[in-house]
């Protein structure tokens, strides 16, 4: 370790597993989702239709990706409030301290690191707000996606019982009224994907930028779970 620096734990193994599961799931869901919306490659498989299942596999992967994202999101929602490591919700409360910190992190980014008036050794308000936005987008994806899914269960039955379509209708039918019928739901589901991709773009850029400008090894957080900080500055 570089002298004058010390290691700071930023992500528990559970958080890192969640992070990479999300990365893979989002990637898989985008690739397969685009195919479902408009099949953009042809399967030149000289088999009869019954043996190919290209669209069916795309849908299967899409749903598995969605299920993984849903499970990790539930875990994240729990950790927001009950994590024994850091409780992110504390950074969401719009009190003076958090608002100031949010502003300072944003100013740090906009002034190209000319000003750094916040403690970067722990997760800051800007970070938590930014991640909360992604999870809200994922919730919308979940609800619009399940609404489309339940169209195929119109009999009110499913292989796991009638409670499942019933629950889906109960929790997602409002999307029909809000977004203008099931075409509107499809549109929102598709458009939200682009916003999530844009979110990912900035997220990756910001981690790289932080690593370069802060010189604290931020990029390592998602891999090894820790970063570094000048000893003189940590209390």
């Amino acid at each position: 370790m570089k002298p004058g620096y010390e290691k700071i734990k930023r992500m528990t193994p559970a958080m890192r597993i969640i992070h990479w599961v999300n990365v893979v799931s989002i990637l898989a869901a985008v690739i397969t989702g685009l195919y479902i919306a408009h099949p953009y490659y042809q399967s030149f498989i000289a088999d009869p239709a019954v043996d190919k299942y290209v669209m069916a596999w795309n849908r299967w992967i899409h749903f598995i990706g969605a299920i993984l994202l849903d499970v990790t999101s539930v875990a994240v929602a729990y950790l927001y409030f009950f994590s024994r490591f850091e409780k992110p919700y504390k950074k969401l409360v719009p009190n003076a301290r958090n608002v100031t910190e949010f502003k300072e992190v944003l100013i740090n980014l906009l002034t190209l690191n000319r000003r750094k008036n916040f403690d970067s050794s722990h997760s800051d308000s800007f970070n938590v707000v930014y991640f909360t936005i992604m999870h809200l987008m994922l919730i919308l994806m979940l609800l619009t996606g399940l609404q489309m899914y339940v169209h195929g269960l119109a009999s009110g039955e499913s292989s796991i019982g009638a409670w499942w379509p019933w629950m889906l209708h109960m929790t997602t039918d409002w999307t029909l009224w809000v977004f203008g019928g099931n075409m509107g739901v499809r549109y929102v589901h598709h458009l939200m994907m682009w916003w999530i991709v844009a979110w990912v773009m900035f997220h990756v850029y910001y981690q790289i930028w932080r690593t370069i400008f802060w010189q604290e090894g931020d990029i390592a957080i998602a891999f090894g779970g820790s970063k570094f900080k000048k000893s003189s500055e940590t209390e």
Partner: protein
Amino acid sequence: MAERREAFKMLFSANSAKVETNKGDAYYDRLFQQCRARLDELKASQPLQAIDFHEILSDEGYDRREFMKWASAATAMLMLPPMFTPLVAEAAELMTRVPVIWLELQDCAGNSEALLRSDGPKIDEILLDIISLEFHETLMAAAGHQADAQLEDAMHAFKGKYLLFVEGAIPMGMEGQYGTIGASGETFHEHLVRVAADAAAVVAVGSCATYGGIPAAAPNPTEAVGVMDVLKGKPIINIPACPANPANMVGVILHFVLTGQVPELDSLLRPKFAFGYRIHDNCERRAHFDAGEFVEEWGDEGAKNNFCLYKMGCKGPMTFNNCSIVRYNEGVNWPIGVGRGCIGCSEPDFWDKYAYERPMSDANIKAPTGGVEKTVDQFGLGVLTATAVGIGIHAAASAVAGKKSDEGEAQ
């Protein structure tokens, strides 16, 4: 060996194959009694038309066996167990006792056409002939004041008993002046409300009467709406599609004759026996969808081999209707059968939201503010471009400015 086979069967047979959709003997027995009583009541009343249904059938070349085959099929369509077949047959014979008033508003008469046109009428169409159609602008001989008088008579004579079929949208713009009735100048809206007041139930036939349909397509100059948007406090049954399938009209009337009630409806007031599932779920080309075999352009190899039409803009996966099972023109064919996709004609706002002949992601969606028309992907790539430009500017500025920091001045 047998045990192992059984174990494999357990392992590989889906639970969904074992779903119990039967509502139970008690339910069906009760329903049977209810229908029996209702039919007896109808039988005791006077027929409104002096015609013998079976005579007409044999004139058209149908024997008893063919009629019973039809009754079995109709029973199945209404999702009733086979023991109801004789009741359905009886209900068909009693159709002469159902008075029907048919209104045409902002429409093209396509639904009237759908129930009239047939090459050698099938039993469904004969049934639609023998219901006591008391008033129908397009079909009746009377015109002008005589027609008006006929309507008043029918409304008075069958007060509270008649089924009101409505075809066409209701124009609400310009205080309803886009559509008025004859010499009285009564607007379509007033007319509908007045005639519906004494109806037993209102059946909105076709997409115009159901949701406004084509007249309500953007920019909707006449401010057209559907029946359910303007009529309150009446049982309304929607039979959307453009045109509505006569099989579904017969189904609804049969159900009404059988039970005296409206069939089970979905959230858009459509009978579940016809609109309880998507076209996609029972499509003859569904295997090609799952296989990823799509028609790429009109007339290609895929088209010749009946591949899935999803990439040509088929809206089967978003459209609830039974076309893929009952088809049109007495089961001769249907849109996907002739090799062109479904345009979603039984869904709300179908002209604007479904009928653009390409997958939704390729369709130009109008921004709510008007003006801008972009596909969702064009818009999305715009979002990504803006993000990339922002990142690019920031990265370039960072590179130029270099790594400087005044860290630690304030904590």
